[in-house]
């Protein structure tokens, strides 16, 4: 796929990773779901350009790609905050105060379910079970788990991410660095 190499919207590292990924499977299409997730990690969401390039790389139509993407809850067609705060409220977390944590975050960040803060640093989401039931209540910020939470611990977690966002801004890093 020489055209994708020259015209890829992805970073050279991700582009090279995708070149290798399609060769791992007996059928190229098996790379679709990982590809969409890794592209989303870099670009922030599945933009039209992302969908177009993935479709091209896998010999699929853009409709095929959208159709599969819409099934998976982690894949999105719109950007989220730099730090996407996902609060599990499923049974094990609920029994240990997940809704209090969620409400605390709503108040603290001034946004609701699927909201994004005005500065784009945080977004908030109520999610289904994230597989940390025995260490509940828990949240996942992007891919990082924070478990055994209280409102105080949540404040520390949020403060740490806010500081990180501040440092990244100072260094002029891109939003998804």
């Amino acid at each position: 796929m020489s055209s994708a190499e020259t015209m890829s919207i992805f970073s050279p590292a991700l582009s090279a990773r995708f070149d290798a990924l399609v060769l791992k499977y007996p059928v190229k299409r098996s790379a679709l779901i990982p590809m969409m997730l890794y592209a989303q990690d870099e670009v922030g969401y599945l933009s039209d350009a992302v969908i177009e390039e993935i479709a091209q790389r896998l010999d699929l139509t853009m409709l095929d790609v959208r159709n599969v993407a819409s099934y998976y809850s982690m894949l999105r067609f719109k950007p989220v905050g730099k730090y996407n705060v996902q609060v599990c409220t499923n049974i094990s977390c609920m029994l240990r105060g997940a809704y209090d944590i969620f409400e605390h975050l709503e108040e603290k960040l001034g946004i609701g379910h699927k909201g994004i803060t005005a500065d784009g640093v945080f977004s908030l989401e109520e999610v289904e079970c994230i597989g940390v039931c025995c260490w509940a209540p828990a949240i996942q910020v992007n891919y990082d788990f924070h478990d055994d939470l209280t409102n105080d611990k949540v404040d520390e977690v949020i403060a740490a991410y806010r500081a990180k966002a501040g440092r990244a801004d100072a260094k002029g890093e891109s939003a998804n660095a």
Partner: protein
Amino acid sequence: MPKLTSHPDEVKIISKRFGMGAANIDRYIELGGYEATRKCLAEGSEWIINEMKASGLRGRGGAGFPTGLKWSFVPKQSAKPKYVLVNGDESEPGTCKDHLIFLHDPHAIIEGTIIAGLAIGAKMGFIYLRGEYRYLIEIMEKAVADAYAKGFLGKNIFGTETEFQAVVQTGAGAYEVGEESALMESLEGKRGVPRIKPPFPAVVGLYGGPTVINNAETIASVPHIITMGGAAYAAVGSERNGGTRLFGISGHVERPGIYELPMGYNLKKMIYEVAGGVRGGRKLKAVVPGGSSTPVLLPEEIETLGMDFDQVGKAGSMLGSGGVVVIDDQTCIVEFALRTISFYQHESCGWCIPCREGTDWLKKSLTRFHAGFGTKKDIDNIQYLAENMMGRTFCPLGDAAAMPTLGFVKKFRKEFEDHLDGKPCPYAKHVEVALV
């Protein structure tokens, strides 16, 4: 990082290397790792399957199907390549056991995958983890790369003529993909919609080839069974339920955590001794014994209940994924039922109408009910709806939603009646569920 817990009653087989740095391949080898694979390479397929049958190991994903028997169903001769598929989609609420295996002992998963491949004659295995487990996927990918570097995976594994390739795959958020045929669809780059059975995966599976699909904990148990011998493993558990399993105790207990206990271990003891009892000295109201899809049990039902597939089945529930969710007397069962059904409504793939419509109407009814606008007829309607979902869908998601709902309505009817006629919920604060 999830905390490791411990109790003297534990029998550590699968968890024996937890917390010992075994994600490092050299450390894993030092601890006796990859010996089981060498032994299997020497002994061959028939011997492996016989050991597995003798072990009495039954599928740890929830169905409890005997693993050795499952492997023996794969045809010896096949025109299409055969595959091993490890199910690490772990998404059943209350279940987080595989999380610890991937974190602490990824090479046990690789060994189990190779051994399953040797047993059925597959040259390739896929290890599928849910997308949320990104840090565990990275640990698994590193472990696979290390195993390739040592020659334990590749064209000539351990210097033999045998080939075995392993690929780690990420999901992207879908409970439904934990069902075996939906998992294969997902791995083929499609929506995770279940396939109709038969044909079963052992005959027509991934890419149309014969496929063995096992839960991650099942696969991680395999090298230990080979090392200790099938019969010795079987002796640890109860009748027809070999070995141990990783029970995850969550909810209202003093010491929630993952504990490895012999099959058949008493549930009451598990809650009151192993997990330190109900939190804050409160009283036990109910227990969900094996993940959110398993029907709820009352305190009087767990007195002498041994936690194995047969005994929990006889008690009218299921051992499921071994995720024990403990509920205290300050909890509103209607709210708990609503949160449970909201999950299944969210996760239903929409392929089968009884599941798609059933979960949606159950959620609507329970939402209205919990808000205090229910009528007495609603209670019967909830039961009627759930009963009519049972057994009428391609995959077990419909049953998984209906079974716990039926349990709540039947066992806590009085509590449902307490919500009638605009009465405020006696317990709960949270009425709406925001998820869309």
